[in-house]
């Protein structure tokens, strides 16, 4: 215990954060155990996702300066608990309600932007999701159902802070209060359970399903284009990293919107890659020094990883989403191909931002590369574990 405390060192976070951390850990445990039965039920894909989230939290704690580690650990445990709860609660309306306090909890941490500015995105997402879900289930004319379907789809997009609901990105903002908290950590949990909740109860009429699918595919393509071009062209490096998340999300949204087995698998793998690879890399990019003149091969391999090339995590996602798109309508594959080719351009820039990591950063990077390799080489095993 003494060694543990020495590792974390003072200053200790406020008692409320410790309490929240403990609550987060307890909630994660309860969700994993499925207690109380009927109220919390963690589907298999979310279990795998949670398994990928834990190392991301560990990495965040590990990379933090010594004095901040306990605070980061507590924040991470809260995040983990929130993720588990959002994925476990079967009632989508309750999920929407819970998004509000989670959003405030994230926004209440100290940061440069005001609480109200930071909570707008999650609040809008909660409202869209909740109202959309309510309209979907309520009797009424057909247009009301379509409106509800639109709300649910837009709610998911807003939770992720994706186009058109992008949040402002500031350089130097702490990871746990930045876009990373939603785009890179909490939203993937919701993205994975949403299609199952929608499909399980056969709640959608064909008309409503069409709306959900069209909105997700359309906004997925928009995010893909925005991310691929933005990560390459934008002046701010922090924004470039955020835009690179949009590329992964673009593939995932398209995969979800196609309502097809390969598409869902692509979305599942994309979300795992966001949590296991992209988010840790974004965290590493905050601490790694700038690239020198002679880059090391490890940093060069990162370009390959970030471009989505084999044998890393991006490849099976691209293969599956292309397959799903081609099966439905081949012209859908054209924007996908363009984004895949463009990803090569911004990968160079992002990898340069990671520089030539040394010490802790290099170990972290090696772990991320290994995770990405596993995702890229044996996606079948992960699909099996997730039941997809």
């Amino acid at each position, binding site marked *: 215990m003494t060694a543990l405390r020495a590792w974390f060192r003072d200053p200790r976070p406020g008692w409320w954060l410790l309490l929240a951390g403990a609550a987060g850990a307890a909630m994660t445990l309860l969700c994993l155990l499925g207690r109380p039965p009927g109220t919390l039920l963690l589907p298999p894909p979310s279990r795998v996702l949670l398994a990928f989230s834990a190392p991301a939290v560990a990495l965040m704690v590990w990379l933090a300066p010594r004095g901040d580690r306990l605070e980061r650990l507590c924040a991470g445990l809260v995040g983990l608990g929130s993720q588990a709860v959002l994925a476990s609660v079967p009632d989508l309306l309750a999920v929407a309600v819970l998004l509000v306090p989670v959003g405030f909890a994230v926004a209440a941490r100290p940061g440069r932007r005001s609480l109200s*500015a930071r909570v*707008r*995105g999650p609040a*809008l997402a909660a409202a*869209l999701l909740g109202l959309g879900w309510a309209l979907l289930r309520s009797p009424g004319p057909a*247009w009301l159902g*379509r*409106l509800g*379907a*639109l709300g649910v789809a*837009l709610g998911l997009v*807003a939770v992720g802070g994706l*186009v*058109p*609901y*992008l*949040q*402002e*990105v500031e350089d130097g903002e702490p990871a746990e209060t930045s876009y990373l908290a939603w785009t890179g950590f909490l939203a993937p949990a919701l993205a994975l359970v949403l299609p199952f909740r929608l499909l399980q109860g056969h709640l959608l009429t064909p008309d409503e399903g069409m*709306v959900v699918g069209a*909105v997700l595919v359309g906004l997925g393509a928009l995010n893909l284009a925005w991310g691929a071009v933005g990560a390459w062209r934008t002046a701010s490096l922090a*924004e470039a990293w955020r835009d690179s998340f949009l590329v992964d999300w673009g593939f995932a949204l398209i995969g979800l919107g196609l309502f097809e087995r390969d598409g869902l698998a692509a979305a599942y793998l994309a979300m795992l890659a966001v949590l296991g690879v992209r988010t840790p890399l974004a965290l590493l990019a905050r601490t790694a020094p700038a690239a020198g003149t002679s*880059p090391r*091969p490890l940093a*060069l*391999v990162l*370009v*390959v990883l970030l*471009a989505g*090339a*084999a*044998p890393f995590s991006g*490849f*099976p996602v*691209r*293969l*599956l989403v*292309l*397959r799903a798109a*081609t*099966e439905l309508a*081949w012209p859908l*594959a054209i924007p996908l*191909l363009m984004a*895949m*080719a463009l*990803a*090569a*351009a911004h990968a*160079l820039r992002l990898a340069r931002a990671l520089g030539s990591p040394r010490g802790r950063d290099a170990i972290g990077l090696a772990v991320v590369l290994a995770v990405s390799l596993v995702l*890229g*080489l*044996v*996606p*079948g095993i992960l699909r099996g574990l997730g039941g997809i």
Partner: protein
Amino acid sequence: MSLAAMLVPPALLAAAAILSWSLGHTGVGAGRVVCAPAAWLAAGVEAVAWWWGGRVPLELSLPFGLAGAPLGVKLDSSIFALQMITLLALALLFTFQPRDPGRAALASLVGGVALGTLAASSLSLTAFGLSVCSGLVWTALAWDERTEVGATWGALSLAWVLLLWAAVVLEVVGGTSVYSAVPVTALQAPVFLLLAAAALLCAGALPWRTWVSLVWRRARPASGSLAVAVLVPLGFSLLLRAYALGAGQWPGGWLHPLLAGLGAATALAAAGRAQAAGSVRAVRAEAVPLGAGLTLLGLALGTPLGVAAAVLSLGGLGLVAGLVPLLPEGGLVASLGDALAFGAPPALVFGGWLLCVQAALEAGPVTGLMGLVGVFAWSVGLAAVARATWLPAPAARSGSPVGLAVGAGLLLAAGVGLGGLASLVAAPVASDLAPPGSHGAAVSYLGGGAVGVTVPSGSWPAGALGGAVAIVGVVLLAIVGLLRRPGREPIRPLSGVEGEPARARRSVSALEVKPLIEPPWRDLRDRLATRLRGLRVPSQYRSLVRPNAVAAAATRGRPWFWALVTLALALVVTR
């Protein structure tokens, strides 16, 4: 034995990579010592096992997948030929190019992956392999220096993405992308075009300056030559596979002249660039594109002779990829090496190109004209080699005399033994991929033996005449070498900067070495690029289109923007 031929070579290269890397980390710089024997051994094992095993095609499928693709490998005559071409080039490079242990390990790994990719049993696995190869090659290139890596990375990324789509379309249309299981009808023209685009991007066989030319103009040629040695055969393997997928035919008669024309244009453009180049290195950079163009010309004809000629030409290309980086920057030996690389008799390059042109002449009147274009390009290429003796060398690089001797020896030996190669290697590939029964009137045959090769339009006594020429040439070279004292004519370090008028380095030092032919469209690309960059929205329309303002509103988290978008979508949906 076929199983050994299939699995041992890539495994040997992968093991060499691991060993070299490990030794490098322990401080033992033994990269070349480990990787070069591994490459030669792999080539030997492959050749012996394939022949000893009775040259029986073999396919091995594993019950699990890799990266979402079915995992399986196969070995047949075409894969054997392509793997041998790759292995010989790699063996030359590994043996005679200096590499530190890390770079040697990476190069060996690239080789192993390339062999695996060539042996892949499905198109999706080939796309996976090409993607891995592209990434590793990019890493090797960027590790050395940053010049020209962007263009290479872009082209190769586009290649694997297109190939991936082709594989996916095949899976959707035909239910599988496993080569031996795809229904013949699944290979439609659009899929083929995707596959061909990927192949041509990968092989750099396009009528403009591709990555193949660019990587050889870099200051450090080691990784560039590795990329060429690995990826050019890989690119052509895709077109060969297309024959297998279509049961000896491509899915449209018009595709043959289209790609053959593209090949002729590629050769012509490469020759044009070579004769206008400003340095020796820039001339040499066009040797492979010129050969790739002629190989494409032969391969696209669709006749057994064309396919066989393309395989032989590709063999020449592979050896050129291994030989050219070993050449010194100047001197008589360098010029002779350049001449062999640009198709001077009696080397394998000459024999392969000759058969490609003959196949084009025999395939029909239109392709005959393309063959003539190929001959013209070939001649211009040789003229460019002659002109190159006046061009400046960018740096004093002495090359590898032993490597040069081995590489040139292999080229000459293969050229002299063209008849044997034709009957033992090229003809089986042609009969497997483009059986005579699958073609109409344009069937032509290739006869080979110890004396030479025979085709309906004439024969080339490679063994008799070519052998005599080679012996006389080597003897003359030895006499010249004996008469000259070493170090009598040192190579002068001249800095030839691309884009500047080339200055002579021989007797006419004050004169500019002008291109032999100056086409009016030489600077067309630069002019177009300048014009495109200068395009602006007229000032009176600027207030209408303000994408920057929209982007700023979208990225700053403005609630009014969110509300507007939501409202607009709601209106669209509820209408």
